[in-house]
């Protein structure tokens, strides 16, 4: 066991006041699995598109193929999950009614729309063999937008009053980027003899996903507790196990690249891990929104620090 954990448990429960334990903020009305799936699929699609574009540029047709298919399927399913989550799905196109730099969901929609179109065009060309040049151009375009696809969703969560998300805004994009690399690399393992780059992506991504999640939970103060308790803790434990197992599987494959079973299994584990990580982070946010402690206590501390800095600011 980690000795730091033990120390943390010794800290007495923070005292705070609330209105009949009611939440101060409204918990998101976003649905499961829609929104966790939207987060995971967008990341998978983004990193897959970049992988496919580089595979195209370096003459790896099998890797390009799985990458393009994954990016198109991921983007389409991500849009589908987003639409399904809307309270008024028939008004989905209102997302593109304006471009609002202050809204990560607006910015994200303006990344997702061209990305999805380019990824779909690349995959269509790949599957039909029609217009391979255009397919490459579309694939390159999707590949350029890919990295943005992996992290805008982190800003989407962080730009809320939800303590476990907002306070994690420096670390969350790193977690999401790592997780996206792991899942896309996991899909790329299916490319057989050309899977080398995907394997390295998978291992790197899994390591970043595991490390950055741990770091995030530890560096955000009290809201970090929302990641270490309740359902979020259970889900994130499962996510860690899945990602670690998938990462080890991908690593073993570096020595013995022949085994298809190991590759498929590792890819599945990595993708299950990435999806579960998103779900765990989603749950942690929900928990931190439902319990007024996570809103009141850090704000109180902030006020106390400010009051100590400028004592005349406050009455009493």
């Amino acid at each position: 066991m980690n000795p730091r954990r033990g120390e943390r448990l010794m800290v007495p429960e923070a005292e705070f006041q609330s209105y009949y334990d009611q939440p101060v903020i409204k918990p998101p009305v976003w649905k499961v699995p829609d929104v966790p799936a939207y987060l995971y699929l967008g990341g998978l699609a983004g990193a897959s598109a970049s992988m496919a574009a580089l595979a195209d540029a370096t003459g790896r047709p099998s890797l390009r193929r799985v990458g393009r298919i994954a990016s198109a399927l991921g983007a389409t399913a991500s849009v589908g999950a987003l639409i399904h989550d809307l309270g008024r799905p028939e008004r989905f196109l209102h997302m593109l009614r304006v471009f609002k730099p202050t809204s990560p969901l607006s910015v994200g929609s303006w990344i997702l729309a061209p990305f999805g179109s380019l990824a779909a065009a690349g995959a269509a060309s790949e599957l039909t063999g029609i217009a391979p040049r255009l397919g490459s151009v579309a694939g390159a375009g999707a590949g350029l937008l890919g990295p943005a696809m992996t992290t805008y969703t982190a800003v989407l969560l962080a730009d809320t009053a939800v303590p476990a998300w907002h306070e994690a805004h420096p670390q969350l994009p790193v977690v999401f980027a790592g997780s996206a690399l792991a899942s896309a690399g996991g899909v790329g393992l299916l490319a057989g003899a050309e899977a080398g780059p995907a394997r390295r992506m998978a291992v790197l991504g899994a390591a970043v996903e595991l490390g950055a999640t741990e770091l995030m939970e530890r560096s955000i103060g009290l809201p970090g507790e929302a990641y270490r308790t309740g359902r979020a803790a259970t889900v994130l434990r499962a996510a860690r196990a899945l990602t670690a197992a998938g990462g080890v599987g991908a690593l073993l494959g570096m020595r013995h690249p022949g085994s298809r079973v190991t590759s498929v299994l590792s890819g599945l584990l990595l993708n299950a891990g990435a999806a579960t990580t998103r779900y765990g982070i989603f749950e942690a946010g929900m928990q931190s929104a439902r319990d007024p402690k996570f809103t009141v206590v850090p704000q109180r501390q902030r006020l106390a620090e400010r009051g100590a800095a400028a004592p005349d600011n406050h009455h009493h």
Partner: protein
Amino acid sequence: MTDNRLAGPLDDPTAEAGYPADHPERVGFFTDTSICIGCKACEVACKEWNLLEADGPLDLSGNSYDNTVGLGADTWRHVAFIEQRVPARDKPQVDLGMPGPGPPGGTSQGGDRDDRDATDVRWLMSSDVCKHCTHAACLDVCPTGALIRTEHGTVMVQDDICNGCGYCIPACPYGVIDQRPHDGGAFKCTMCQDRLGDGLAPACATACPTDSIQFGPLDELRERAAQRVEELHERGVPEARLYGHDPSDGVGGDGAFFLLLDEPEVYGFPPDPVVTTRDLPAMWRHAAGAALAAAGGIALAFLGGSR
């Protein structure tokens, strides 16, 4: 160009939103909770005027006389009730003929005599509402443009634009706006936009029998509120304090602010709310950094050489 577009003091959010210089003055609410009698006339008047449905089946919450529990898609005014046992005082703070402690006909009238001799029961009542923030997170994050700043400086949802994405809901630092389940759209207080246009005060302020809810130009309300706190302090109510009046607070000051008799969190308010988009530039910087690192990581994976 305007500074402080995302956070910080902002004199005229209406002009910042693009209205011409001759726009109407910014209006707001000053809710003086020290004279609220908990009659809920505001809740009822709001429901009536805005044709809001019941929130659900009639239910008792157990939270004193508050069975509404909180603001929501169909509750745009909400009266909070807090029963506190406080040390006995020699003089009542603000005597408005408050009802006695405990539920009517309940046991607390008889029992507990020793305890009641040593303490008074203090009853805090407060009518909550959308704060019509100077920097409104709900408005900032809305991707469709459904949420707008009105010509009166208030914040309003245009129902025909809202696609029910739900983003505004966890963005609000006060937990105000919510989704109407069977409709999918987001709803909250409009400050009776339809009445404002006709030169009328909002329904809640009109119905309030004690003037606990005061409506008017925000500047005037802020002055009046400052006087009222001073007056209460002089009358021996040192715990009176304003909440949401300060243009240098985390949301640039509220269009609807309050006089409270205890810490904000006792009433269910966040003690130090901050508009989440204050940190948006930092968020995008971190996200861009991570995206570039992801691109670099993928490129490195292809440089490994072996297949």
